[in-house]
């Protein structure tokens, strides 16, 4: 079982490291849109690795199942919040600081079968 312990500790440490990196990114990046990328590192890699380590500690129990539910919650609600935030910021007229604007390569809804139902 020493091997399992080592693996879980490594995962917990990796998760902690990614959490701190994500927080640093939120502090360091220049505008809201770039900061969102850093926040999603916390949501996915940080929480993912940390909880995977905790799951190894808990073994096959109800606790593991609950950790899995929390992770699933993160994975399904994270994009919703990020998307809502980005859309709200764009709607408010906040211009993203970008090096290159490649949006012109396609126009909105230029394809004929856009959003077709099956």
């Amino acid at each position: 079982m020493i091997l399992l312990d080592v693996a879980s500790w490594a995962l917990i440490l990796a998760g902690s490291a990614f959490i701190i990196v994500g927080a640093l990114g939120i502090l360091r990046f220049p505008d809201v849109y770039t900061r969102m990328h850093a926040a999603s590192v916390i949501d996915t890699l940080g929480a993912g690795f940390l909880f995977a380590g905790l799951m190894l500690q808990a073994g096959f129990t109800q606790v593991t199942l609950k950790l899995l539910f929390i992770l699933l919650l993160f994975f399904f609600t994270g994009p919703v919040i990020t998307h809502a935030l980005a859309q709200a910021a764009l709607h408010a007229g906040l211009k993203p600081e970008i090096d290159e604007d490649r949006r012109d390569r396609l126009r909105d809804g230029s394809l004929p079968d856009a959003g077709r139902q099956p």
Partner: protein
Amino acid sequence: MFAAAMIAVIAALVLVVIRVVKGPTIFDRVLAGNSVGTLAIILVAVLGFLNGRPEFLDIALTYGVLNLISTLAILKFFRHGDLAHDAQEDDA
């Protein structure tokens, strides 16, 4: 080892709270606030393991759902200035 994870999460919380205070736009604050919520969930989960009481996870799960709803509510409030937005009011 759980203590190390807790220290990391608390350090991250401090960094993120600095962003909440500094802003500059409302969206920076909402983003950082949402990250504070995420970190709080992780903190509660690790705290449960540290105390040997993993029942804390129920609280973490509930907090996760609340975090989603509160963030969306705040965003909606700042987009429309109103929680119960009615499109017809815009014409009036």
